[in-house]
Structures are given as structure tokens and as C-alpha cells.
């Protein structure tokens, strides 16, 4: 395992320093191969042109196939052309980015001329790059763009709900906005930790130089902009009326905008599967010598269990989308009851993916928070094995609870006690996480930094989210709560209050590692306070709104609920400003006036801090040998985590503290 892989792909080693004949770099005499037309320029411009050409090609094929269908001529919309257009457009996009060059050259028995990992400078962030650190940063920016777009859509929702009967957008556009918000958030939340932090940090934390499959890793990222554009383009086609759950047969009935949902979610599903697969293989195979499972940081455990869920659950979504696409294009009848299908089929398939999915959104939050707690408590993590057992337990159970979304549906009524039991059982491993968190806080020496504030906020928010879940798991109590704003508040508490708080905490914590630049702490503190206050002020009343009788996704509601709804809407706008504070901090501290961060600003023992910030192309000067676990705080005779420690011995770290200087 201690193979030196500095010459393998994924490194920014200048060509001049490469050993001729080493993997990926043939001596000049043997270089044969082809390049994509360079007239269009590398990267994004070429990809856009290819995407447009691909879309037109797919559209043409779709018209060739289906233009004569009576369904198409009568309704005036050719779904086959639109879906094929999107799919070929996506192929064109990734082809233009250069993703297909390597497999195509290999297939034709040649070697790639210029390996993509050679690019250096800021331009590499806009290209197909095999360095996991570049992909991590690309993912981070991409997911923030997703988050802000979907967040603006949320504000549009709250604008419409300012009045129970007067309409800003009207029912049609309102439903489109709801669907866009939900789908975009769900697509983004699935990748928001595994993409940026998983790709950037996992190799650093396990002592590897790269991910196992750098090309798949880059592909998984470059699919996300395609999914983003496809999903947004739905608004131009009239949107989709189904929300993110896409329930059939409404999704079969819906107009052309639904095709964008099918294509975008499908493209994202592939990205999710690839990203998860890559991480699982990396963690299993590329750990540095001495990195036993017991020493593996909790964050890596969390990301790996998440990745298992991604690999195992997402194919079911892809299959369901495939069926939906067929129902919509060539009139199969998977979901039509009168022709042998069933409206329950989509519900089953979707939630068989969808419930593991919601734990894909919870586990990385646990992982980040538990990773940060020991650093800021200056204590070892409490009962690390219990934490890992908790995450593994949640993952395993998450496959056996999906029908709790269907308690009222009339499907398998006699199975409801079982699904009630499995759902409530999930509280046990979730309780493990709280045990570990509280045990770590016990008699700690807490340093209340900005990341730590977000961690504490996470525990409070997730507590309320989890407790409200118990009401939903109880069939009688769920009768009222199901399908209302209560559910909506519940999952916003776990996803927004949990995952996003963890994500923001993680950004404050790891951005110095990823960029070598510090976020502004004072602004960060106000960012946290504003977010925490306005988050709770937005979503706490929504529990009441739901229990008082307001279903989800409605553009009109009872007049007696206007005060609560207006309170929520105003809080939501203020929450928007809190997030704007974060954006301002991010742009200010990273771009406009960057402040050089100390090498190990949090005085962490973690392996990722035992190299420079940002890390050099090969991550480490050499593959480290792991000597101890990452959380041995308070143990005077503890060995450093690895033998690289000369760089960040406690003395050196302390010296680095006062060396803050402008870049």
C-alpha cells in the first residue's frame, strides 16, 4: 500500500519533471494519438458548443422516431426528442470537456497525447482535471451555486405564501418553483459533503496521493453543471408540477418540463453513483500504512458509509426514472393502473431510493461535526466505535423504512407496524451520535470558534429534526402530520439545520486547508448567530402550521394561518440575508482581500493538517506512516498521528499562529 504513486495520474507534476516512460507519460518518440479540435478552445467553450450540437442531434433523432406518434401530434410536445436532446447534449458536454478523450484513445489502441493532469494555474479550475484537490474545489463552488439558486427559489415560495389568497406567481408558476427548489436542493445536498470535502479531504486524511479513479471523479463533477442547466431549463418548457418526488401518474401526465426533471435527475444519479463508488474504493484500498480501520478518522467513516448508500440506493432511482422516461416517450404503462401498471410502483421505487437518500443527507453532517468536536473540545472523541456503529447502523436500517412515506396510501396496511418499528429503531443509532457528541463535550476544554458554533447549532437543530421524526413514525400521529408543513419543517431541520450547518462549519474549518486562506472570524460569528436565529424562526413555526392543517406545496391556505405564514416568510428573507453574510465573507476572505491562514489554525492532530495549506500536488512529500489515531488530545505521551510530524509539531504550529500575513 505504501507504493509511491507520485507519477501516477492525478498530479500536477510539470511534464519536465516526469520520468519518461512512466505511466501516463510516454517518451516523445512513441506518442501517437489524437486531440479534440483545438480551434474551439479547450474546456468550457468547446463543451458548450458540443453540448448544443449534441442536443440538436438528440432532438433530431427524437423527431425521427416519434414525430409521427398520434400522441405527439395531438399534444404538440415530443418528449422523446426533448429527453434524447438532453442526453446527447450531456454526452456532448462531457465530451467537449475532454472526459471521453482518454477512453476513446485507449479503445483505438493509442495513447493520450497530453494528459489532463498537466494543467497548472487558475485555468485548471475550469477544466477537466484529475487532481482530487481541484475537483474538490470545483465541487465546492458548484454546490454553492446550486445552493444559492435553490435558496432564491425558496424565497420565491415564501413570497407567494405572504398572502393566503392574493397571488404573486399564481398556481402554475408556484408549483414549478416548488419543484425546482426541491429537486435542485436534493440533487445538491446529496453531493454537498461528499463532493467538496469527500474528494478534497479523504486522500489527505487517509494518507493517499489521489483518489482511486481520478477520471471518474472528474466526470462525477462535470456531470453536475449539466444537471443544473437541464433542471433550470425546465422553467422554459413550462416546469414540472410534481415537486421533487415526481409522483406518477402525475409525472406521466405532466408537460414537457417534466422531461427536464427526468434527464437532470438521471444525470445527477450517475454522478452520485460514480462519486460514491470512487470514495468507497479509495478508502478501502489507498489507506497509508498504519491507517487501520480503528485509526480511520470519523469523517472518513461517515463519508464512506454515505458512499455505500449512494452506490446502493441511487441505481433504484435511475431505474425508476428510466421507467418514467419510457412512460412519457413511448407510452409504456408502468404507472398506469388500467393498463397493468400501478401508481404505487413509483412510490415504492422512489422511496426505496429516497429514504436512504435522506440518510445520505444526514450521515455526512454527523461525520463533519464529530470530526470537529475533538479538535475544539481538546479531548479524544468519546466512544469512537459507538460513533462508527451509529453511522453503519443508520445506513443499514435506512433500507428498511421506506414505506413509512406511504402510511396513508393503502399499500400494505398490515406492514405498517413493521415499518413503524424499523423507523423508530433508527433513533437508536442516531442516539449513538448524540451520546458520542455529549460524551466528547463532557468536561471538555471547549474553544468556541466559528466551526464549533456551527457544530453546536447542528446538535440543537438535528435534535428537533430527529424528535419531530418520532411523531411522523407513529402511524396515528402521522395521520395528521403526513403531507403537511410539519413534514416539511421536519426535513428542513435535519437537512438545512443539520447538513447545511455542518457544511458551513466544515467550510469555516477546512477552507484554510483547501485554499491557505482564512475566513473572517467576526463576520463568521455574526453569520452563525443570524443563521441560527433566523433558521429556527423560519422553521419552528412551520411545525405548527402543518399541525394546524396546511398541506405542503399549496399556493392558497386558510386565512387563519396568515400570521404564522407571514412570520415565516419574513424570517425566511432574514435567513436569506444571513446566508448573504456567508457569501460576502467567502468572497471577501477568499477573493478580494485574502488573509494567509496559519498552517494548522485549529491545532488539530489530523493527518490532513500535516502537510502545507493548500497541499502540494502530491499531497505529501512521501506516503506517511500512521503512528496513532487522530483524536489523542489530552494524552501527554501520545504519538503524533504520522511520521510527517516534523512539519507541524506543536511548537511549529504555535509559531505559525502569529505569522498571519496578507498574501
Amino acid at each position, binding site marked *: 500500500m505504501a507504493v509511491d504513486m507520485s507519477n501516477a495520474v492525478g498530479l500536477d507534476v510539470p511534464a519536465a519533471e516526469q520520468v519518461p516512460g512512466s505511466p501516463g507519460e510516454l517518451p516523445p518518440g512513441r506518442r501517437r494519438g489524437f486531440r479534440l479540435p483545438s480551434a474551439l478552445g479547450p474546456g468550457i467553450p468547446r463543451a458548450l458548443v458540443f453540448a448544443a450540437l449534441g442536443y440538436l442531434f438528440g432532438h433530431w433523432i427524437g423527431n425521427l422516431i416519434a414525430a409521427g406518434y398520434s400522441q405527439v401530434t395531438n399534444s404538440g410536445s415530443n418528449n422523446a426528442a426533448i429527453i434524447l436532446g438532453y442526453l446527447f447534449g450531456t454526452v456532448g458536454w462531457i465530451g467537449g470537456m475532454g472526459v471521453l478523450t482518454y477512453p476513446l484513445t485507449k479503445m483505438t489502441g493509442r495513447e493520450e497525447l497530453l494528459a489532463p493532469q498537466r494543467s497548472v494555474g487558475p485555468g485548471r479550475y475550469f477544466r477537466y482535471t484529475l487532481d482530487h484537490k481541484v475537483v474538490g474545489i470545483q465541487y465546492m463552488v458548484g454546490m454553492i451555486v446550486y445552493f444559492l439558486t435553490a435558496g432564491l427559489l425558496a424565497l420565491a415560495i415564501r413570497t407567494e405564501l405572504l398572502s393566503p389568497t392574493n397571488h404573486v406567481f399564481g398556481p402554475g408558476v408556484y408549483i414549478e418553483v416548488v419543484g425546482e427548489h426541491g429537486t435542485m436542493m436534493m440533487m445538491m445536498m446529496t453531493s454537498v459533503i461528499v463532493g467538496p470535502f469527500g474528494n478534497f479531504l479523504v486522500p489527505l486524511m487517509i494518507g493517499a496521493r489521489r483518489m482511486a479513479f481520478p477520471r471518474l471523479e472528474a466526470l462525477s463533477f462535470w456531470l453536475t453543471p449539466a444537471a443544473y442547466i437541464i433542471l433550470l431549463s425546465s422553467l422554459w418548457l413550462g416546469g414540472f408540477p410534481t415537486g421533487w418526488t415526481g409522483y406518477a401518474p402525475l409525472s406521466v401526465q405532466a408537460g414537457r418540463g417534466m422531461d427536464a426533471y427526468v434527464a437532470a435527475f438521471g444525470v445527477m444519479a450517475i454522478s452520485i453513483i460514480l462519486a460514491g463508488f470512487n470514495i468507497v474504493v479509495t478508502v478501502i484500498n489507498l489507506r497509508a500504512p498504519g491507517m487501520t480501520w480503528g485509526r480511520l478518522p470519523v469523517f472518513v467513516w461517515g463519508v464512506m458509509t454515505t458512499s455505500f448508500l449512494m452506490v446502493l440506493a441511487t441505481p433504484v432511482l435511475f431505474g425508476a426514472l428510466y421507467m418514467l422516461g419510457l412512460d412519457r416517450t413511448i407510452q409504456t404503462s408502468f404507472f398506469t393502473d388500467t393498463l397493468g401498471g400501478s401508481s404505487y410502483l413509483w412510490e415504492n421505487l422512489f422511496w426505496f431510493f429516497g429514504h436512504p437518500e435522506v440518510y445520505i443527507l444526514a450521515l455526512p453532517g454527523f461525520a463533519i461535526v464529530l470530526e470537529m468536536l475533538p479538535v475544539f473540545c481538546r479531548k479524544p472523541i468519546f466512544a469512537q466505535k459507538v460513533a462508527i456503529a451509529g453511522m453503519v447502523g443508520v445506513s443499514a436500517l435506512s433500507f428498511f423504512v421506506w414505506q413509512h412515506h406511504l402510511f396513508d396510501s393503502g399499500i400494505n396496511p398490515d406492514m405498517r407496524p413493521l415499518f413503524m418499528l424499523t423507523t423508530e429503531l433508527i*433513533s437508536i443509532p442516531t442516539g449513538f451520535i448524540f451520546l458520542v457528541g455529549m460524551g466528547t463535550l463532557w468536561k471538555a476544554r471547549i474553544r468556541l470558534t466559528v466551526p464549533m458554533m456551527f457544530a453546536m447549532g447542528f446538535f440543537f437543530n438535528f435534535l428537533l429534526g430527529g424528535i419531530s421524526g418520532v411523531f411522523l413514525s407513529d402511524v396515528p400521529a402521522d395521520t395528521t402530520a403526513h403531507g403537511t408543513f410539519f413534514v416539511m419543517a421536519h426535513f428542513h431541520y435535519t437537512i438545512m439545520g443539520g447538513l447545511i450547518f455542518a457544511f458551513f462549519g466544515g467550510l469555516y474549518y477546512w477552507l484554510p486547508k483547501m485554499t491557505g486562506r482564512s475566513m473572517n472570524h467576526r463576520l463568521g460569528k455574526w453569520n452563525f448567530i443570524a443563521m441560527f436565529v433566523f433558521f429556527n424562526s423560519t422553521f419552528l413555526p412551520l411545525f405548527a402550521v402543518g399541525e394546524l392543517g396546511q398541506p405542503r406545496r399549496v399556493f392558497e391556505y386558510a386565512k387563519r394561518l396568515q400570521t404564522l405564514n407571514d412570520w415565516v416568510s419574513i424570517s425566511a428573507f432574514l435567513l436569506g440575508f444571513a446566508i448573504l453574510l456567508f457569501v460576502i465573507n467567502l468572497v471577501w476572505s477568499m477573493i478580494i482581500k485574502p488573509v494567509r491562514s496559519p498552517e494548522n489554525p485549529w491545532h488539530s492532530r489530523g493527518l490532513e493538517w500535516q502537510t502545507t495549506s493548500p497541499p502540494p500536488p502530491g499531497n505529501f512529500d512521501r506516503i506517511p506512516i500512521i503512528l496513532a489515531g487522530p483524536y489523542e488530545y489530552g494524552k501527554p505521551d501520545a504519538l503524533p498521528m504520522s511520521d510527517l510530524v516534523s512539519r507541524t509539531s506543536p511548537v511549529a504550529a504555535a509559531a505559525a499562529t502569529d505569522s498571519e500575513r496578507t498574501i
Partner: protein
Amino acid sequence: MAAATERRDGIRILGVWLVLSAIFMPIVYFVWGPHLPPGGMSDQAAGQRFDNRVLGVVATPVVLLVCTFLVYALLFWRQTGEEIEDGPYITNKVKFSGWWVGLTTFTVLCLAVFGTYELENNNGAGTGSGPRPIFAASGPMLPVQVIAQQWRFTFRYPTYGGMETTSLMIPQNEEIQFNVTSLDVIHSFWAYQLGVKADANPGVNNIAFVKALHTGKFNILCAELCGLWHGAMTANGQVMSQASFDSWATQTEAQEAPVTKLLPKYSTVYSPDEAGAGGNYYGSQYPVNP
């Protein structure tokens, strides 16, 4: 010295938590509980309110414990100086972890048993329980069919000549059997104050029971996104005394007779005619139920 402070921390947290729980648990159950949704208009609603009360009482100490602990930690276990001081080296306390796991498991299993009991003893707890509900009400009951379509609910009374109405009237103190079905996409029939929620699936007869205890109006809403007018898919409902329901029903039956004549024979589900009322998506060559 160290052991002494440790014991004090634990006892202080425990004390605060017990005091807060002793204050708030009775408040949740006795003061807030009777006002918890969905109210007490029907036996089902009252059952759900009871569940909400019990779950609220169970949730209160859990929330209080974590909050007390977090606040205590932030108040008493902070360090602020430039010098970083490490905390005690505690990696696990097996006994404590064991108690935690045991207690959470016990609580969760109790909740599951409680939920199952409530589901079974409350005739399916007002939820849609499929075409052959196993937790069914017994004795005489009035069947009412709820037909959802994009985007209205209508109600058929098979025992009153199969008449169909746009608002839902039910008698007090009589077991009602709602047969919920849809003519198109998935809807969800939600009679808020009655504590009834049942999905309306095309081609499915989803049964829910209720017994209204008080007369009065109630709201009907669609609780499953069904397209453009989902938010406006509401209807009015009313619980009437037995006598006024009887007179309303016989009068309406006579008044509606000309329209009732047009309706198809009462059936638990209705299939669209693909050639006409089905929208012709699959083309007229496809018969219904091949």
C-alpha cells in the same frame, strides 16, 4: 479533586434536567395536551391527539436533556485564552454508554408497541388502510365514497341511491366507512378535524374509518400534490345530528335524482374510458384492463 468536580458536574446536570422535566412534562401533558391538534371532533382525532400528547411527554425530557447538557457545556467547560489547554483523556465510559443504549432501545421499543396498539385499537387510526383493512371497525356503518379528481373532491352515498354531492355530510355517533378512490392521479383525502387521511389512488379502494363525536363543520383538503390546483382542492364537510342527516340525505337524494341517473353504477373504483374520458394518451386501440 478531579473525581469530586466530575461528580458535581454530573449531579448538577442531572438535577437541572430532572427539575426541568418535572416542570415541563406535566405542562405538556395536562396544559398543552388537551389543545393539541387535530382536536377531539371524532374518535380518530381524539386518538391522534392522545398519541401526540404521549409522544410530546416522551420527547420533552429528551430535548431537555440534550439542551441542558449543551448549555451547561458552553457555560462551564469553555476555555478562551491564547494558550490551548487539553481536556481530560476520556475515550469511553462503557457503563454509561451501555445505559444510554439500553434506555434508548427500551424507549424506542415501547414507542413502537404503543404506536401499534393505538393503530390496532383505533380502527386504523383514521389512516387509509387499503381495500381490506385488518384493523377494521365492526358493527353497522354508513359507507361514503370519496372520489378525487383533478381538482375536486366529490362524495357518493351508495345507501342513498348512489347520489353524489360536492360537500361531505356525515351523521354524528355513527361509524363511517370512507371508500377513497381517484379518477386520475394520486390525491389524498384529508378531513382535518376528523383526523382522517387516506390517499386516493386510481383503481384503488382505500378505506378509512371515523366516528364523529361532535356536530360541526370540518375542512377537507388534498394532501398529496396533484398538479395545478392542488392548493385549491378543498371541500366543506359537516357533522350533523342523526335526524338532520336523515332529512338532508332523503331530501338531497330526491333533488339529485336527475343527475344521479347519469352516474355510472356505484363501484369501488372507476376506470376511465380510454377512447373518450381517458384523454387518448395511449390511443383508442387500447382497451381498459387488457
